[in-house]
């Protein structure tokens, strides 16, 4: 029925065959292409992940879907050898929600290769259900199931869904229902020591840490074996907007709330504590309070007035970037709790942020429809990406991409990054630092005046440590244009993730698309035999 309404149907994805669960959601509207072109080749829609359509109605307007990518290692749940995986051994995790480890942990060689060990046991049975009535019952609990594999964790309405990234199944393999409040944010740490690797933050402010493997092994629809923090919002009852593990933080994690506060927790500490923090005296002033006793949360950071919308740690865990309602990006040294730098958006709130793998740049996106590139070296915005026709809701660097002619000799570093917006579009960008040119400054009215001169000078002026920059003027910031503009969903988008093999996009209503990268050698590699042949081959749709 979907393809019938689409005369030039390219059969978006063969994995959807025989699966009409998402029919009601109006996906695959005509006009949505199943591929997009980049200089290095075509990205093709590989498959989609979704959730039972019956939930859509309930979820509407209540919460926005975010996705976390979780790589469960080949190792039984009870093993104690986890300490061997301390620094950057597995690159497996990125989170669209929290985007910590945004750059893929610095090691490109490892990651989502191969199918999931456990997918066989469940994939056959998950397709039974339609319209969300019975699929959860069809899942067979299997306590021997080691769970190894790569999973997508996403929230829709009052549930968390877990999908197997490498299976073709559109349906999730697991759902966890939260009866009290909607889950909003989540984060995963592949190197968690005691098994609790997944964090879930709720609309009520409540936070859980659980073992992902344990959830997969359990057959029920409830969260199992969770550690409950901020129970019933006793410490803070405002929405939990963003959550992140501190990289190399030994079980430390931070939770950002809609009231401008951020809390630091330590997994090893008692979660039942009820430390009361002093009242925030000045809503506009940054302040940190530590718990008097060794209880969770161990500290409260008051960041700003209004909501914190997104937080992201640099790969080494040294810095945390925080964006929010007031439109400021703030970068803190996490250990010393000092504000390092930051600045205001062009206008409106900032909604998302992420780090480059080398920690030199931060991307932010927000309500001014712009993607901002912030330089840690210069402590200012060095470029504005213009191309979205609505708010920018997700940004990410592509750490797996390398410049075509990167021989390592030139100093000209190119960064590839992507952004998604409420305009339903995915944009890809190349940031070439040498090519950035500050636009010519013309004084209004044609005559150079003192006032404009001094304004620009102010902008160029070096910013002292710990000071926040005001919003730059339109003419002071170099502009970038997108490399690719591609409409990927019918609904506004909420996030994107780059993996070694693909780009994942997710819309607010909880539909995920997985776009396969151009196959190897498809680019201009002149000395590659396979390259030329692949390039010539006309590609019609996607074949499984």
């Amino acid at each position, binding site marked *: 029925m979907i393809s019938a309404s689409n005369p030039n149907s390219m059969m978006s994805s063969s994995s959807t065959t025989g699966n009409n669960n998402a029919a009601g959601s109006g996906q695959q509207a005509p006009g949505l292409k199943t591929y997009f072109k980049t200089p290095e080749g075509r990205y093709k829609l590989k498959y989609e992940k979704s959730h039972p359509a019956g939930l859509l109605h309930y979820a509407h307007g209540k919460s926005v879907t975010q996705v976390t990518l979780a790589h469960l290692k080949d190792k039984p749940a009870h093993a104690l050898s986890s300490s061997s995986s301390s620094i950057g051994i597995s690159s497996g995790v990125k989170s669209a929600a929290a985007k910590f480890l945004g750059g893929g942990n610095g090691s490109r060689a490892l990651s989502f290769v191969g199918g999931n060990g456990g997918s066989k046991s469940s994939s056959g049975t998950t397709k039974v259900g339609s319209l969300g009535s019975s699929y959860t019952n069809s899942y067979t609990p299997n306590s021997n199931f080691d769970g190894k594999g790569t999973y997508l964790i996403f929230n829709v309405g009052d549930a968390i869904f877990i999908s197997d990234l490498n299976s073709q199944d559109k349906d999730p393999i697991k759902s966890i229902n939260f009866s009290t409040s909607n889950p909003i944010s989540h984060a995963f740490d592949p190197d968690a020591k005691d098994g609790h690797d997944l964090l879930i933050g709720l609309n009520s402010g409540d936070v859980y840490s659980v073992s992902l493997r344990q959830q997969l092994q359990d057959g029920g629809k409830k969260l199992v074996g969770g550690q409950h923090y901020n129970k019933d919002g006793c410490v803070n009852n405002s929405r939990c907007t963003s959550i992140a593990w501190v990289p190399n933080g030994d079980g430390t994690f931070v939770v950002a709330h809609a009231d401008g506060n951020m809390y630091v927790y330590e997994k090893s500490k008692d979660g039942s504590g009820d430390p009361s923090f002093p009242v925030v005296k000045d809503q506009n002033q940054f302040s940190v309070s530590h718990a008097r006793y060794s209880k969770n949360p161990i500290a409260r950071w008051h960041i700003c007035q209004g909501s914190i919308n997104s937080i992201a740690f640099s790969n080494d865990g040294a810095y945390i970037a925080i964006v929010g309602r007031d439109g400021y990006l703030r970068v803190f040294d996490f250990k010393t709790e000092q504000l390092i730098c930051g600045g205001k958006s062009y206008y409106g709130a900032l909604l998302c942020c992420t780090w480059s793998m080398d920690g030199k740049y931060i991307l932010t996106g927000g309500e001014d429809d712009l993607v901002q590139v912030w330089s840690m070296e210069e402590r200012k915005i060095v470029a504005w990406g213009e191309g979205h026709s609505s708010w920018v809701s997700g940004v990410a660097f592509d750490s797996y991409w390398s410049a075509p002619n990167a021989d390592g000799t030139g100093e000209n570093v190119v960064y590839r990054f992507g952004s998604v917006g409420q305009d339903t579009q995915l944009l890809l960008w190349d940031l070439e630092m040498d090519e950035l040119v500050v636009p010519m400054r013309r004084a*209004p009215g044609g005559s150079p005046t003192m006032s404009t001169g001094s304004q620009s000078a102010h902008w160029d002026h070096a910013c002292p440590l710990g000071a926040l920059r005001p919003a730059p003027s339109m003419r002071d910031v170099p502009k970038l244009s997108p490399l690719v503009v591609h409409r990927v969903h019918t609904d506004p988008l909420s996030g994107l993730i780059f993996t070694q093999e693909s780009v994942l996009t997710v819309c607010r209503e909880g539909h995920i698309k997985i776009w396969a990268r151009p196959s190897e050698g498809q680019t201009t590699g002149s000395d590659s035999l396979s390259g030329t042949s692949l390039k010539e081959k006309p590609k019609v749709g996607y074949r499984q």
Partner: protein
Amino acid sequence: MGAAGSKLEKALGDQFPEGERYFGLENFGNTCYCNSVLQALYFCVPFREQLLEYYSSNKSFTDAEENLLTCLADLFTQITSQKKKTGVIAPKRFVQRLKKQNEIFRSYMHQDAHEFLNYLLNELVDILEKESRAVKSDLESSSSSEQIPNGLNTSHTNGHIKEPLVTWVHKNFQGILTNETRCLRCETVTARDETFLDLSIDIEQNSSITSCLKNFSSTETLNAEDKFFCDKCCSLQEAQKRMKIKKPPQILVIHLKRFKYIEQLGRYKKLSYRVVFPLELKLTNTVEDTDAEYSLFAVVVHVGSGPNHGHYVSLVKSHNHWLFFDDENVEMIDESAVQTFFGSAQEYSSNTDHGYILFYERVDVGSAS
């Protein structure tokens, strides 16, 4: 008195702003279009204050003659002078006057809130101009009325002799658009200035106000049957046209064209598009490179799926609290609730509450430090 405190009073508690009144307006049968706009105007504080000031200082001139201005001023006075902090008021005289004066609004049919706002503002301007002229002829002196400062648009006004009068309504709402047309043959740029009290902009699905404003100012080519008469070439020529904002208004009113005539259907259709609007906005489509910064303070919301029926409510920001006005009812809402009025990403949605008229107030950023 204190015991009868409303729910809203309780919600605000000791944060209830000093001297402020939050009153619902009674509906006299499909007058919600009027109520929603009146609330937005009431909470446009500079407008309210200047109206009341003008009214109190000009009472002697206006005699007993009733008009929309006096009715509006009376209504606002009535609200501000209430003993209670919250309650309901019947804007009876105002609505009666409106219906008496304009037959469009006389019927009990569903009316368009934007049309009403437009009518009201223009009517106020007319009244002020008339009174000013009367005063002028009385005093035989031109010094009392304020004129547009030199060079603002006198050179472009297309040879009109009438001296434009800048009333306090203009000072609040009026901006100037420049319509630049470049003849593609002789390259001559013709600039025509037009004033506006609000901007009506086309909208697109899943877009932002920023993007809609950009489209509003984007270059359009005039060709085929839509050629431009170039004065220099003395003939119809292909040309490029764009609209830029020459003078950003103090209060920026943006009307989203949600009611569109669909030729195939032979009728108007409501576009339920999701158009996001930020709480802060800057105008970039200006002639000068200055970034005029604005802050959202009111939204008139159309509720319903079609153009000929439905309901209007308004969201208003007052003293950093957001309030929801639905005729008689006034409630406090969270700032984050504003985003539930953006519209629907899908055509058929149960959500029919859509932002229709946006009111932004110019923010004076402190000196360029």
